[in-house]
């Protein structure tokens, strides 16, 4: 907030509080004889016979008004309310959030710490730990990977024991903590439609599906020509260290229909698993890795 706005708000607030005080003082004073006497009607009539009496309120009611003004003064001194003035207690939402997070960490921290000491493969057999792991998964992972961890187009299936980056506990944990980036370059410019059909046929054949034998032959030559083997290997089995997909297993991250395979070849793909080290921390990632591991082991 700029200095002028801050000043504007301070003045507005203070004037309002003082204005309230003035109104209370002014209305509480005895009025001239013109006004209705106490106990008399004010002369207003509604619905034919409803009249308003000028009955006094109890004195303590007046005190309540004064108390609210005192409260406002104390509040404005302790809490933010006067423009840029942060208040004596320095309260803000961010520190309140941090406090609550710290309290939660204090409560659940020991639990995660105890889990983090067990090897992932062993932790995956702990039913109670897996119930916690499932809750974490539903919170943090299910948005992309699905509540059953079965994935979706572009988001890997985590429950089928087929791994791009390796399926050991530690490899899964590394994927969660540091993220993964999997890029398939776009080959669109170097491929005529005929050649695209041919290489698609070869990829289909690799995964054990039906394809035209003649086209497969042509496709195989293009596979070598474009150096697809550099990543996916001579045999098409990929490379788990670098996350190059296995083309022979009929598991498709971006869809296995001929059309989807063509799109992958032409336009390339860019997969990105974000890093969660700063966000979740080591211990939660450990438990999550164990949960993901438990899904296929």
């Amino acid at each position, binding site marked *: 907030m700029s200095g002028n706005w801050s000043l504007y708000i301070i003045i507005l607030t203070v004037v309002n509080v003082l204005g309230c005080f003035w109104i209370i003082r002014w*209305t*509480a*004073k*005895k*009025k001239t004889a013109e006004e209705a*006497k*106490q*106990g008399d009607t004010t002369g207003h009539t509604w619905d034919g016979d409803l009249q308003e009496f000028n009955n*006094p*309120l*109890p*004195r*303590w*009611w*007046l005190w309540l008004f004064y108390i609210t003004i005192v409260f406002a003064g104390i509040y404005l001194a302790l809490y933010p309310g006067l423009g840029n003035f942060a208040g004596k207690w320095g309260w803000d939402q961010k520190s309140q959030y941090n406090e609550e997070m710290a309290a939660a960490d204090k409560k659940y921290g020991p639990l995660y710490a105890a889990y983090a000491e067990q090897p992932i493969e062993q932790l995956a057999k702990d039913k109670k730990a897996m119930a916690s792991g*499932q*809750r974490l998964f*539903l919170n943090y992972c*299910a*948005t*992309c990977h*699905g*509540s*059953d*961890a*079965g*994935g*979706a*187009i572009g*988001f890997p299936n985590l*429950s089928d024991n087929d791994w791009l980056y390796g399926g050991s506990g530690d490899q899964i944990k590394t994927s969660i903590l540091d993220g993964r980036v999997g890029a398939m370059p776009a080959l669109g410019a170097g491929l005529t439609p005929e050649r695209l059909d041919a290489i698609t046929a070869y990829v289909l054949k690799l995964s054990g599906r039906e394809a035209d034998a003649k086209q497969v032959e042509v496709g195989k030559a293009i596979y070598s020509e474009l150096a697809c083997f550099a990543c996916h290997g001579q045999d098409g089995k990929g490379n788990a260290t670098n996350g190059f997909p296995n083309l022979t297993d*009929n*598991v*498709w991250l971006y*869809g*296995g*229909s001929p059309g989807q395979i063509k799109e992958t070849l032409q336009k390339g793909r860019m997969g990105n698993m974000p890093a969660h080290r700063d966000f979740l921390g080591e211990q939660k990632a450990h438990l999550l890795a164990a949960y993901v591991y438990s*899904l296929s082991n």
Partner: protein
Amino acid sequence: MSSKVQAAEVEESSGFYAKHKKVYPREVHGLYATLRVLGVLTLLGLYYVVPWLSWDGHQAVLFDLPARRFYIFGLTFWPQDFFYLAVLLIIAALSLFYFTALAGRLWCGYACPQTVWTEAFLWMERKIEGDRNKQIKLDNSPLTKVKFYRKAIKHTIWIAFSLWTGFTFVGYFTPILSLGQSLVALALGPWEWFWILFYSFATYGNSGWMREQVCIYMCPYARFQSAMFDKDTLIISYDDKRGEPRGARSKKVDPKEKGLGACVDCTLCVQVCPTGIDIRDGLQYQCIGCAACVDVCNEVMDKMGYERDLVKYTTQNAIEGNKSSILRPRIIIYTLILLGITSALIYNMATRIPLELDIIRDRNALYRTTSMGMIENIYTLKIANMDTEVHSYAISMQSDFNAKLLMRDQELVIQPGQSATFSARIEADPADVKKISQDVHFTLVAKDDETLRVEESGVFIGSGAR
């Protein structure tokens, strides 16, 4: 006399605000006073005793907010049962309409916590300071040792009673036995301290100091109840045809000779009134319908040898000499609605199935195509076992098209009072999926108890062969 008092009051006050005049209600005996004492004893008794009862190994009545479970004897309510609270509130509101239309401010006079606790505080005050006259005298006397001690004892007892009330209140939300132990060890949490002290303070302030002012200035019920009155509603009223002209006289004198009515102008009806009004001025919004004036006036009439009921429960129509009937359309309609809703609630509670199934469809992807070319939808099943025993459940799915339910967990075992989350998939051949969106019906049933059975519908989304 009362008009003189009022005139004096007006002169003393200035502006919009007036100094409060303390009301010293005189002790009263009689039919309605007995009824009120019975009401007070029953309600306070229930309030202080109920949290100490136990049922099936838990506190009989416990509103466990952190765990989101309400225990009321054999019943356990979950947040899903919030509906019942809504119905209960509707019944409470309708009862208020019903009883108010029938007999005015019955609630205010006999059952309102403000009345009930004030009665208890008044009783303590009388035991310590004596009756009305002694109280007035004590308050008007200069501060002496005796006065100081009397007041100190009174407030100490009031505060002790209030603290016990606050403690009991929190005992409805935190198990009272462990609360008591923490209290003895002074190891309560900050919120427990706050609520015990706050509720105690409210009890002490409202019943000791505020009293009738709560009814007159604060209570919204007090004001809108009069909107439910009609000319056949029972109200407490002074029979001024019989009573006027009022005046003191000897018991031996025949009032007719002196030209007097039945009212001896003893002002006892004013002295017993907990809100400090004069019922002879007619029906007033301050009147809480406690009938103290009826009791005391009948006593006086008996002493004088006059007919009773100079002040009595009657209706506007009866006062005006018209025909007055209690059974009128308004009462009959209220009765029918009240009976209908109450029996529906009881029926619903009696047939309530302590099992809940929620089907939550994954929304991150409309559907998934498997490597086999099948269409899959993913669901999260939340199952809550609200029963008191552990159950193993079986789930099945029916659909209008050819589809299969696949569960990762084969065993659906849930501990009593727990809920669990399971993931489920429904798989279908795209050739069988004719519609973009269609319903699928899940049935969950306990393997050991056929009556624990719920059905829920979900939606299956597929590309649809077009």
